[in-house]
């Protein structure tokens, strides 16, 4: 699963949805692979305002990427800086979590990722 997807996901437990700790989920024992995907600069630039940058910063650090700046780059900055654009593309679009877990900091539930697919089905007692 792509790192960008984590920006759109939270814990599946109903009681966790309103807790700020249920987002983002925290990768654990993640095995990463890198895809080769063409850069779409316009998509990345337009995407910036809808990325939760704080959550992305947390995810990137937990996956072992160099720390992101505390503030998201502006569209102008990104447009002018090809290296920054490529780094962001690499992190969001090309990096895939193939195996591992996603952990909710609110309830502690661990969601397995296998063959790149995260399983959000809950055990019966949590449904």
């Amino acid at each position, binding site marked *: 699963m792509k790192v960008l997807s984590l920006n759109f*996901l939270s814990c599946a437990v109903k009681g966790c949805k309103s807790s700020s700790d249920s987002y983002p989920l925290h990768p654990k024992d993640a095995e990463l692979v890198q895809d080769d995907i063409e850069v779409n600069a316009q998509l990345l630039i337009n995407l910036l305002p809808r990325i939760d940058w704080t959550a992305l910063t947390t995810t990137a650090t937990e996956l072992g990427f160099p720390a992101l700046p505390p503030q998201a780059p502006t569209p102008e900055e990104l447009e002018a800086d090809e290296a920054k654009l490529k780094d962001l593309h690499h992190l969001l679009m090309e990096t895939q979590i193939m195996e591992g877990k996603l952990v909710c900091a609110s309830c502690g539930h661990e969601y397995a990722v296998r063959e790149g697919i995260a*399983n*959000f089905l809950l055990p019966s007692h949590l449904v």
Partner: protein
Amino acid sequence: MLPTPDTSHVEFERIYEPAEDSFLLLDTLSSAAEAAFLRDRFGSRSDAAGPAPVPPPFVVEIGPGSGVVIGFINAHASVIFGSRDVLTAAVDVNSHACRATRETARKAAADNAASHGMYLDALQGDLVAPLRPGSVDVLVFNPPYVPTEELPRQPAADHEGGGDKQPTFDHDSYLLSLSYAGGRDGMETTDRLIDALPETLSPRGCAYVLLCAQNRPEEVKERIRGFGRQWRAETVGSSGKKAGWEKLQIIRIWRE
């Protein structure tokens, strides 16, 4: 008519095979009227200072099965939305469907190199449970809509959903039943999805939901309008007209 994604790799003994309902969704989403609605809502806008960037819509199909619908939306993003800047994803209870969807989306994107959007992931889960509240801009749902005496038991972690289980005929039949059996009025699962829409959709979000005549579509639309003054629900596609009845229809749900 835009080309339909190739699903020749899909194991139809345990995944719903594209049928009339799937094709009605494709026709409706690529119709001139819906493309106009979606472009107006999610397309880039120009003002005196030039084109203003609009964040790309996040499009999620619930229960993609073979992936033919989300694969189609992603492959033809620039035709439907007027831009390739579209993010797509899917959630299915059946892990086989998640894998099939990934492959369908990959192939369809490769076949439409100049028009496809950015396909992200298929997640295994129950309806919208994995999604961050308020994140979905376009939700598409072809539900299990056939009225049945009972709703199949709902899948839970470590069993039922596919996973690493050895395929058996019974388990395959169970997985297929999840894709069509809708319980009372064929609406038990659809009702749960509709109840979750206010929390799931972004402020600019909309949803396309397929219904059959036995689902009592007029009542469903009235119920959604009852969510509040801004809520709208209208039929935007139909097929199988029979004695004045639409056998299948697509309703679009949105807020003004």
